[in-house]
């Protein structure tokens, strides 16, 4: 599990960047796109629990939400960085928060009372969302407001705390202050920060 996370690096680099600079190699063959890499690692494993649930419908749910996170929710952060008017920024932040409410409901459904989306152990959907928590916290600090809180998204907030304290992720998910510094540096250069 730890090697899977370490392979991810910044898990939401886009295809072109991966193709140029950061393919994952396995037996001399390259694989690109972070969630495809995670699924490859899961498919290619010889032992240990699967990252995806065993029931096909639960697997479909996990894939659905991972695709939503990747295709709809994470791009909001890039949109936020590229938006300068206060009103437009507020609107994007509202959409980020609406996404978190959806994930809170999805968590209740997928976890079935257990600590993670994957159940007792971290799974595919935990990785898909959890890997972006560093940037979520940094964005909260930059914008001076909490997106993920105990009142609006109680189950998700609890999950986030468990996720952050898990051994596999402590070394990998970047510290909030470091990401805030990167964001300031990149804003100064006029280019969007990587991963957002």
């Amino acid at each position, binding site marked *: 599990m730890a090697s899977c996370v370490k392979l991810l690096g910044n898990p939401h680099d886009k*295809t072109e960047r991966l193709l140029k600079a950061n393919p994952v190699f396995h037996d001399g*063959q390259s694989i690109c796109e972070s969630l*495809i890499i995670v699924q490859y690692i899961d498919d*290619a494993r010889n032992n240990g629990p699967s990252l995806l649930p065993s029931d096909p*419908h639960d*697997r*479909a749910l996990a*894939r*659905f939400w991972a*695709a939503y996170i990747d295709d709809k929710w994470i791009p909001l952060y890039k949109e936020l960085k590229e938006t300068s008017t206060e009103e437009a920024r507020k609107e994007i932040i509202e959409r980020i928060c609406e996404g978190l409410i959806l994930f809170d409901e999805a968590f209740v459904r997928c976890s079935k009372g257990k600590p993670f989306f994957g159940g007792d152990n971290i799974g595919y959907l935990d990785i898909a969302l959890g890997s972006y928590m560093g940037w979520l916290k940094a964005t909260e600090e930059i914008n001076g407001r909490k997106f993920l809180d105990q009142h609006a998204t109680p189950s998700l907030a609890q999950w986030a705390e468990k996720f952050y304290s898990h051994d596999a992720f402590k070394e990998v998910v970047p510290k909030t202050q470091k990401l805030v510094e990167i964001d300031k540096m990149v804003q100064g250069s006029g280019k969007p920060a990587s991963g957002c």
Partner: protein
Amino acid sequence: MAEVKLFGTWFSPFSRRIEIALKLKGVEYEFIEEDLSNKSPLLLKYNPVHKKIPVLLHNGKPICESFVILEYIDETWECPSIWPRDPYERATARFWAKFFDEKCVPAMWKVCWSKGEEQEKLKEECTQLLKILESVLSGNKFFGPGENIGMVDVTGNFVAYWFGILQELAGLHVFTKEKFPNVGEWIDEFHNCSIIKENLPPKDKLTAHLQARFQAVAASK
């Protein structure tokens, strides 16, 4: 009551892919034609997040998003498998299916509806995408993997069929067989495959449908 239902439209490349997958697996299903201008309460109930087709309903449980549905179909009805079993080939197949859906479809759809400078930029983007497809197909008849047509080729159905009709209606020549001979041959093979041929919307009907949309857009300006 049918165990498997598919909410879709006759003209959607996304719901046609699901039909091909179900037929390859020999799964009987009930097709429910949706009116996208007046979506049914059932569709909105089963896909509250995106409110889109296709939606597969199996034993009362909905599955949404076409790629998620295709993986679900392969995992639920195991034989014959429609995606590669080898992990690397499966990862490659997922990559190219995503490439078709996230890069090719949006650019090739938008280029036909845009004008002026925006259209010129999109034409260049489409050309670059076609160059990538051209190079992948160098020495390969299909995206496969292997020698035969596979689900990756099926997920390329918009490029292989819908785009040709759209670009003609838009008066564009972004794709030509002269510029992209490998893609041209792949399109010919695509159309020769019997299960695909049987599950494409009729050309004249699709052309008339898309033409009506072009005229509606022109009239609204």
